[in-house]
C-alpha cells in the first residue's frame, strides 16, 4: 500500500459503523426524491424507463385483484429514492477531481485506475406503494484489500436501510465499491 492508498483506507476505516443520510455531493450525481411521497406517475415513469410492462406497476384494476390490493412499485424502484451505493462512494470525492469534472485524480492518487461494483445483496421486506415516504440510512461496514488478476483491489463495503413512513423496513441493500489500483512493481 502506498502512503496515499493508506490514507484512503484509513479514511474509510474511520467511517465504519457510523450511520449517515446518504446524499450525493459529487457533481457527477444529482439529488433524488428521498422523503417525498411516492406517486403512481413516478412508479409508471420508472417502469417505462426500465422497459417493464408488468401491469402490477401501473394498472389499477389489474393490481386491485392482486394480493396487494392496488398498485405497488417494482422492487428496485427504491433506486429512485437512493441508489444504495453511498457507503462505497464515500471516496469518490477524493479519487476524482472536484465536481463537475469526473476525471481520476491522478495527481493525488497516481496508482488509482477506476472503480467497479462489488456483489450487491438486496433484501425486500414489503412493497413500496403510492403515498409512501421512504427514507434511506446508510453506513460503511468493512474495508479490505484483495489481489485481483490485473489490479490490487480495495473493497469498501456498506449497507443502506430503506424505511417507510410507518417506521417499517422495506428493504436492505448490502453492497460496495471496488477501487482498482495499479499493481506494485
Amino acid at each position, binding site marked *: 500500500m502506498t502512503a496515499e492508498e493508506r490514507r484512503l483506507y484509513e479514511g474509510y476505516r474511520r467511517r465504519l459503523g457510523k450511520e449517515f443520510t446518504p446524499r*450525493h455531493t459529487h457533481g*457527477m*450525481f*444529482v*439529488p*433524488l426524491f428521498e422523503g417525498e411521497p411516492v406517486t403512481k406517475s413516478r412508479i409508471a*415513469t*420508472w417502469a417505462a*424507463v*426500465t*422497459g*417493464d*410492462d*408488468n*401491469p*402490477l406497476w401501473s394498472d389499477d384494476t*389489474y*393490481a386491485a*385483484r*392482486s*394480493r*396487494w390490493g392496488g398498485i405497488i412499485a*417494482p*422492487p*428496485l424502484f427504491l*433506486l*429512485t429514492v437512493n*441508489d444504495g*451505493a453511498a457507503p462505497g462512494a464515500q471516496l469518490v470525492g477524493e479519487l476524482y477531481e472536484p465536481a463537475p469534472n*469526473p*476525471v481520476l485524480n491522478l495527481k493525488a492518487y497516481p496508482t488509482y485506475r*477506476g472503480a*467497479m*461494483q*462489488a*456483489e*450487491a*445483496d*438486496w*433484501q*425486500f421486506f414489503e*412493497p413500496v406503494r403510492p403515498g409512501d415516504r421512504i427514507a434511506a440510512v446508510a453506513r460503511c461496514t468493512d474495508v479490505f484489500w484483495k489481489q485481483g488478476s490485473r489490479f490490487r483491489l480495495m473493497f469498501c463495503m456498506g449497507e443502506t436501510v430503506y424505511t417507510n413512513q410507518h417506521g417499517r423496513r422495506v428493504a436492505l441493500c448490502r453492497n460496495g465499491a471496488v477501487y482498482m489500483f495499479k499493481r506494485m512493481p
Partner: protein
Amino acid sequence: MSNESRESLRSQVYWEDVAVGTELPPLVKGPFTVMELAKFGAMIGDFYPTHYDHKWATEKDRVPAVIVYGLQMTVHLSQLLTRWIGPDGFLRRLKSEIRSPTYVGDTVTLRGKITAKYVIGNEHLADCEVWGEKQDGSIVERGSATVVLPSKMAA
C-alpha cells in the same frame, strides 16, 4: 401492451407448480441504446459520462463503447423474477454480481433456474440461480434470488 402479454402476466405461478430444476421464462433486454441509458441515469441521479458519452468512454475510460449501468443490469434480473412470480408473488432477496461489462448495442438474455423450494412459517419460498447472457453466449452477470410464491394449500 398486447392483450396476449397481459394474459400471460395474469397467470399466477403457485409454489406447488415449481420444482428444483424448473427454468424461468427467459427475458430478453436490448439492444441497449444511449437514450435508454441516459433516461436510466436520470432516474438514479448518476451522470458519470461513460454511460452516455462515446468519446468519454473510448478515450478517457478506454472501453470499447458506452457501458450499461451495473444497476440497470441488476434491475433486469429483478424483472426476470417479478414477471415470473406473478402478481401474488414477492421478491424477497436478490444477490447479483457483474462479471463483464455490457455495452450499447448488446442484447442480454436473462435466465434462471430453481435450486431449492421450502416452507418457513407460513411462507412458501423458492431459491433460484439467475444470470444474464450476452448475444455471444458470454455470462455478463450472475446471482441468486429468493422468492415467495402463493400456495394452493393456503388459497
